[in-house]
């Protein structure tokens, strides 16, 4: 019985390993022999490395792009911008890099010429119905209210710090979350009365979270650059995808999700 279980487990592991190899190989196998330079010649697989905050919008843009270019497949790698920058520098086969901050784009050694394609700014997120009666940034200094901010080490925390400095306020957080989604989750669960997250995050969690805008947000606007990488295995495909993101269709998807035009 035990032996059989082990055998089954081993078989499963082997199958998984094979599957992983397969999916690794397929982009390389189908990658094009970049013949033409016009957008009509786009083919093969486009590998897009994009910041985690772009997951929703870029997945949508990828579908639209594939529909407009039959036979082309867009493969995404969503993660924190700094992790993606490291992967690219270590030779990961990326065609496009969309970063949540210029800093992470600058870390990439073989970037092309990046273009800022959207901006994102902070908003106060409160649980639906605003049970903590939060009205603005000054509520973040109220010891009696439960407040979550991002840790200063991550981008949304750095932005929050700028905002509070601009407003000359000292926040009294109950938790410094490790990323913006963790902060958003705590608002959604009603564990905190308010958190500072991006405007796009508030919109993405509309059924659980309300957003409150505040003037100081203008002091810490996040710029998102996008670039076709110089070592891109599928440079034509990458360029076509970047063009699509920058097009009117692309802008529509992005602004509907709460991003601002640059």
């Amino acid at each position, binding site marked *: 019985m035990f032996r059989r279980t082990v055998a089954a487990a081993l078989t499963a592991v082997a199958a998984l390993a094979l599957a992983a190899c397969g999916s690794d190989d397929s982009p390389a196998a189908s990658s094009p022999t970049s013949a033409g330079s016009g957008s009509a010649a786009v083919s093969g697989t486009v590998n897009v490395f994009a910041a985690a905050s772009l997951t929703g919008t870029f997945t949508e843009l990828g579908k639209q792009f594939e529909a407009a270019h039959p036979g082309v497949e867009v493969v995404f790698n969503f993660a924190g911008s*700094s992790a993606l920058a490291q992967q690219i520098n270590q030779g990961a086969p990326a065609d496009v890099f969309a970063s949540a901050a210029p800093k992470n784009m600058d870390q990439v050694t073989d970037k092309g010429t990046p273009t800022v394609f959207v901006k994102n700014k902070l908003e106060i997120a409160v649980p639906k119905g605003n049970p903590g009666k939060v009205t603005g940034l000054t509520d973040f200094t109220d010891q009696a209210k*439960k407040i*979550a901010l991002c*840790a200063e*080490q*991550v981008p949304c925390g750095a932005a929050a710090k700028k905002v509070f400095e601009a407003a000359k306020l000292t926040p009294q*957080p*109950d*938790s*410094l*979350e*490790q990323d913006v989604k*963790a902060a958003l989750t*705590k608002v959604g*669960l*009603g*564990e*905190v009365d308010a958190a500072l997250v991006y405007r796009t995050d508030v919109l993405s969690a509309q059924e659980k979270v309300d957003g409150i805008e505040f003037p100081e947000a203008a002091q810490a606007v996040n710029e998102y650059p996008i670039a076709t990488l110089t070592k891109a295995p599928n440079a034509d495909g990458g360029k076509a995808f970047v063009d699509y993101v920058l097009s009117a269709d692309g802008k529509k998807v992005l602004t509907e999700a709460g991003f601002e035009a640059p």
Partner: protein
Amino acid sequence: MTRSRRRTPVSGRVPLVLLVPAVLGLAFLLVPLIGLLAEAPWSSLPSRLFSAEVGEALRLSLICATAATVICLLLGIPLAWLLARAEIPGRGLIRALVTVPLVLPPVVGGVALLLVLGRRGLIGERLDLWFGFSLPFTTAGVVVAEAFVAMPFLVISVEGALRAADPRYEEAAATLGAGRWLTFRRVTLPSIAPGIVAGAVLCWARALGEFGATITFAGNLPGRTTTMPLAVYLALETDPDVAVVLSLVLLLVSVVVLACLRERWISGLR
């Protein structure tokens, strides 16, 4: 425990077919740890180590892990006894459920704790309403998260020790007129002491390293809920050297604990 230990016959030569994968396995486990040592910023290590934040995180880690272990001992030993000795229906299922936190992703554990003990949780809402007390974002919350994740280690160790212990001593005590509680205290507990120590140390070490459930349930605030693993994670975002130093401290603590445990561990579980 007084029974003589069985000796496995020692063969002179290890067959190559076993030796090669064994050495590879050893290397696989040890190389990352050696890498940590090699990458450590030794020259600036003392100054980084004795910074206020590191001290604070370490102190909090030790306190919370110890408190969590005490809770696990108080609740876990009776639970292990129940699983090993009592005639209860569905014991196999209960045992499986007890070990779920072992394999559950800790983040999931944290979410589950939030849903039950959080401010809007099943029990947490009552706590907040009646006593104005809420566990998330408090040091007590860290202890709860750690105890949740670490308790199975204690229960498994103690249950193993109970099953290995000879029940005849307990029966003898009973025939001599001792009540069940007296028997438990004076006969059962001493006979499984090594197993309890082993379980407690494992439990403590697991609590010390706990990350996912802690950050999800208790959040992260220096001095209140930022334990060492949380400090390591955030340090990686800005200053990897600090993360390496913190990791070294945790590695050292783990090795010391396990080295001290070895004797007990073997005698506890035979």
